[in-house]
């Protein structure tokens, strides 16, 4: 849980972003966002297409600068040109399509590329590459050609490349949405261990519920504003409200909500498969005594 007294690693105040300002049809992508992200946090940012979530992510490593308001990373103002490089050293980003981020013809060299450009010297560079490849479970692929890997493997290579730069904040922009279920769980478990074991702050932009459930805190954007905020359990179980925001909820949460409508003694805020299974078992044990069991 974020400590409200600690200085946030990312501080956003009154952030507005307008595309095509001064044109006939300016688009206000972000509208007065206030947000603190704390060291070691795992934050998921949800929202339907066009809600502003990718625009927000691009402010975290100065791919965009505010039209109005301020963004600070480790106290550094993103509007000042001299802060751009130190901020990019601090915030690493993984995008949706891994092919666009792979630069070298051997996995190992690709992973080393970013860190090498930061000037990491040789013995340490080698260690970092090995550590990053091991963390994403790709060490045995170090001598392979990246373009012959599967999409999930490529995405893990892209992630390792960012990890080798040892960013304080890792931003994942829809990084698992093109992957199959196996590739997705591989990438998510690598990210989870980075967050838990290395204390890396993770910001995951997503519309996939498997990813949001991993987070410690979820914010939902709508029309460039924060519409909902809280732990996954509080946000993702608000089935009706999530629907009006054009978002899905996990099937387990929707099932729990539907059961609760019909039978209020079943909790309506269960979020995972395990919780629903346990909830239904518990209900069966405590409520069906004396009630006729269906004999089908």
């Amino acid at each position, binding site marked *: 849980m974020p400590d409200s007294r600690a200085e946030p690693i990312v501080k956003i105040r009154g952030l507005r972003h307008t595309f095509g300002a001064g044109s006939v049809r300016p688009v206000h992508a972000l509208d007065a966002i206030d947000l603190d992200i704390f060291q070691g946090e795992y934050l998921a940012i949800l929202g339907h297409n066009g809600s502003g979530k990718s625009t927000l992510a691009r402010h975290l490593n100065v791919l965009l600068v505010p039209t109005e308001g301020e963004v600070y990373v480790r106290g550094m103002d993103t509007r000042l040109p001299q802060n751009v490089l130190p901020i990019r050293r601090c915030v690493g980003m993984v995008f949706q399509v891994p092919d666009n981020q792979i630069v070298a013809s051997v996995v190992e060299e690709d992973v080393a590329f970013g860190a090498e450009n930061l000037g990491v010297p040789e013995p340490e560079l080698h260690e970092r590459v090995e550590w990053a490849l091991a963390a994403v479970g790709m060490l045995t692929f170090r001598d392979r050609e990246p373009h012959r890997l599967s999409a999930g493997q490529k995405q893990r290579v892209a992630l390792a490349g960012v990890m080798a730069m040892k960013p304080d904040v890792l931003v994942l922009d829809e990084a698992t*949405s093109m992957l199959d279920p*196996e590739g997705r769980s591989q990438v998510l478990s690598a990210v989870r261990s980075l967050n838990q074991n290395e204390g890396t702050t993770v910001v995951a932009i997503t*519309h996939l519920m498997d990813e949001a459930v991993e987070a410690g805190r979820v914010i939902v954007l709508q029309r460039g504003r924060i519409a909902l905020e809280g732990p996954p359990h509080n946000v993702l179980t608000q089935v009706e409200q999530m629907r009006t925001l054009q978002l*899905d909820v996990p099937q387990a949460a929707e099932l729990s909500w539907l059961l609760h409508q019909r*039978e209020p003694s079943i909790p309506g805020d269960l979020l995972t*498969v395990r919780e629903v299974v346990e909830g*239904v*078992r518990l209900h069966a044990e405590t409520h069906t005594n004396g009630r006729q069991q*269906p004999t*089908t």
Partner: protein
Amino acid sequence: MSQQPMIRVSELHFAYLRGTPMEVTALRGICLEVRRGERVGIIGRAGSGKSTLVQHFNGLLRPDSTGQVLVAGSDLGDPATDFRRIHQQIGLVFQTPEQQLFERLVGDDIAFGPKQLGIERPERRERVRWAMEMVGLDFDAFKDRLTLSLSGGEMRKVAVAGVLALRPEVLVLDESTSGLDPSSRREMLRRLDRLHHEENTTLVLVSSSMEEIAEHVDRVYVLENGSVAMHGSVREVFAHPEQVRKLGLDVPQVTAIAHELALVGLTDGSVPLSVPEGAELLLAALGLHSAQPGALGTGDAR
């Protein structure tokens, strides 16, 4: 209606870069059948051969000497086959259909296929209008829009409409909904269901979303390393979560919940495919609702 299958694939093998040191075997003896008016799902982990397989359905890739692909009886390995007709019968939409757009205006892009088929102007216009209506694009509002000014979701609709304007008997969607946000995705699937009901269009859906497969197809083939590892009705396949997970996939959460509860004897082994089905099953199991035995099937039936 003819009993002849719409698509029949037998003993299909395929290797990329055959005869070179880079040779990669993608398909190893696939047998599959798609009946007329059926909705068939093709699933499997990345690299299992799904896209290679569906590209054989309209002759984009040709079978080697041992395998055979028949489309409504026509052999796609036979050079004498009329491929113009095959391309009209089988419409293929890829994962990033945005890349299939090339005309400046939306209406022209959708009209391109029918024009190639030699269809005259008034009918072409009607087809474009119908195809746009099917995908949910207003004809008058969108026909003169620049294709490059559209959002990602709208571009996909245009790409699908362009294929629909050919009036294909089979629509093959290769991950065409992945990357769309949930509401656009749901809308597209609803429209495909409508197309299936109203026009009896045969649908082949390649997808990595198990929820989508559960709710929108009748039968499913699971590929693994270029072979068919499982096939059957969706309920039959999803009745075996452990086996599905070994193939790098998963079952929908609601199916997994029912399976876990069946293991402890709380439910009867029914296989719910949607959240409302799951809710009915669980309420019945808790004695809160009159059960309809066998309504969902057990996955072992048939």
